């Protein structure tokens, strides 16, 4: 399936913009998506962390992503 992924901070620089399309297997989990991203964009491997948010909440590793979910890449946060 085709997934639209939003990015912020350094993730935006790594994928080349605030939004990208990714072709992923159906019923992919957050953990699998992350693995695919680390392979497709090796620069993610240099980060302190990379989290996936689904619909405004941190995803659990085994959470299944549906095509209508809002999927967001969360590189290490640095607010405050």
């Amino acid at each position, binding site marked *: 399936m085709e997934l639209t992924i939003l990015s912020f901070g350094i993730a935006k620089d790594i994928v080349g913009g605030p939004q990208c399309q990714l072709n992923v297997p159906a019923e992919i989990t957050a953990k699998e998506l992350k693995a695919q991203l680390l392979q497709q964009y090796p620069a993610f491997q240099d980060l302190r962390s990379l989290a996936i948010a689904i619909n405004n909440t941190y995803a659990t590793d085994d959470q299944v992503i549906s095509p209508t979910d809002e999927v967001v890449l969360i590189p290490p*946060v640095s*607010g405050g």
Partner: protein
Amino acid sequence: MIDIQLLDTPLSPQQCLERVQNAAAGGINLFVGTVRNQTKGKPVVRLEFEAYAPMAISELYKIAQQIQARWPAKHIVIHHRVGTLEVGEIAVVIAVATPHRLASFQACQFAIDTLKETVPIWKKEIFEDGEVWVAAHP
């Protein structure tokens, strides 16, 4: 009362303080995070804050709710700035009012510590010769 805001205009600590003040409060702790003029000795020109707004607000609410579950903090205000900030400007204000003072310190410190770990806000430091997303790399 929980008051969470992301703002692209200057923050007002005085307003945050007034919002938490109440007759049952004995102690109010206010944390104000400002933009430092240097990082590891290197002069900072300005900062840029970017937020994934809906989730940032939701995570900030969770922090306030966790505080209310752990401490008798009736009123909590967390205002975070986004956009471009000059040196000396205020990036975040946290205000917590509690009946006794110790809880106000503990709750306010919990808020800023947790904010820095969980809230999807990112800070880019602009130096004269480049820019860096803070804390992105180990």
